[in-house]
């Protein structure tokens, strides 16, 4: 799967899995998935929502997000999550 197709699938998973009230295309690549970025922008999701995304991402993309350190890196933004999945798959 190429990066753009993966990006689309990741956005669809985040929006449907976490029941966000807008279409996947509206999810910005650089937005912080959990918490807020320096500009105060965020999705209104908290660290407990992240647990569900861990499960969804692990099941869909067959990667492992074993702990908070990896989670922070993987969920820094949509782009970071896409990079993380590609990296993990490359390493597999």
């Amino acid at each position: 799967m190429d990066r753009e197709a993966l990006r689309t699938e990741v956005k669809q998973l985040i929006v449907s899995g976490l029941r966000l009230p807008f279409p996947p295309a509206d999810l910005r690549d650089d937005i912080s998935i959990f918490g807020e970025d320096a500009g105060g922008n965020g999705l209104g999701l908290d660290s407990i929502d992240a647990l569900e995304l861990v499960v969804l991402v692990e099941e869909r993309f067959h990667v492992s997000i074993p702990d908070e350190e990896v989670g922070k890196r993987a969920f820094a933004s949509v782009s970071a999550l896409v990079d993380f999945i590609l990296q993990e798959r490359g390493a597999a």
Partner: protein
Amino acid sequence: MSAVTTGPFAGRRVVVTGGSRGIGRATALAFAREGATVGITYAQRREDAEEALAVLAATGASAHAVQADVADATQVTRMFDELRAALGGHVDVLVNNAAVTHDALLMMLTESAWDRVLDTDLKGAYLCCRAVLRGMIAVHGGRIVNVTSPAGFLGKEGAASYAAAKGGLVALTKSLAREVARFGITVNAVSPGLVDTQILSGMAAERRRELERQIPLGRLATPDEVAAAILFLAGPAAAYVTGTTLHVDGGLTML
């Protein structure tokens, strides 16, 4: 006997740590009688686990036993991989019952004994919870019941490590209950008082009577009475109960 195919636990996958003897075996058996598929873990005594499996099999339930030290993260991972394969999927109900104790006054308590008790009784529960949560979150449901002790609430001389671990287990129960409530997962504890198990069978009659006098209901609990409380918290009647401790102690603590 054929397996029970109806009832509140029919088709549910249940894991009881320390399930080969005492409260753990009684709990595993009670779940099996209600139709659950049951996995038990044991630390060392294979003969006890085999005997427990025979008792479970007699109910018609599917049952599986795994040897593992719950204090060891690697072994816990292997244990749940094996249990999920044997039981046919993710764990619906986890009962953290495995525990050890060590009698010594704190001033004389060795560091290794302290570590062994905390690692088994508290860290073990953390590791087992961590191992089942992904499956429970994926299906938005699950039940965790932690077996604690009056010592965790009242303290106990000569058992500071055990009391600290069990008190910690109560705090873990409340914290995790808050973390996973939105996924429909409940986390509760049962605090059995003195229970008539193999461990107490060697006790002198006078000592036993002395203990019984301290219990308002005037007798020890049976393992089945503790199991009934665990099944209540794991069943549909307790759907709105989380983060609490059910004291099955004959009125010993009255908290």
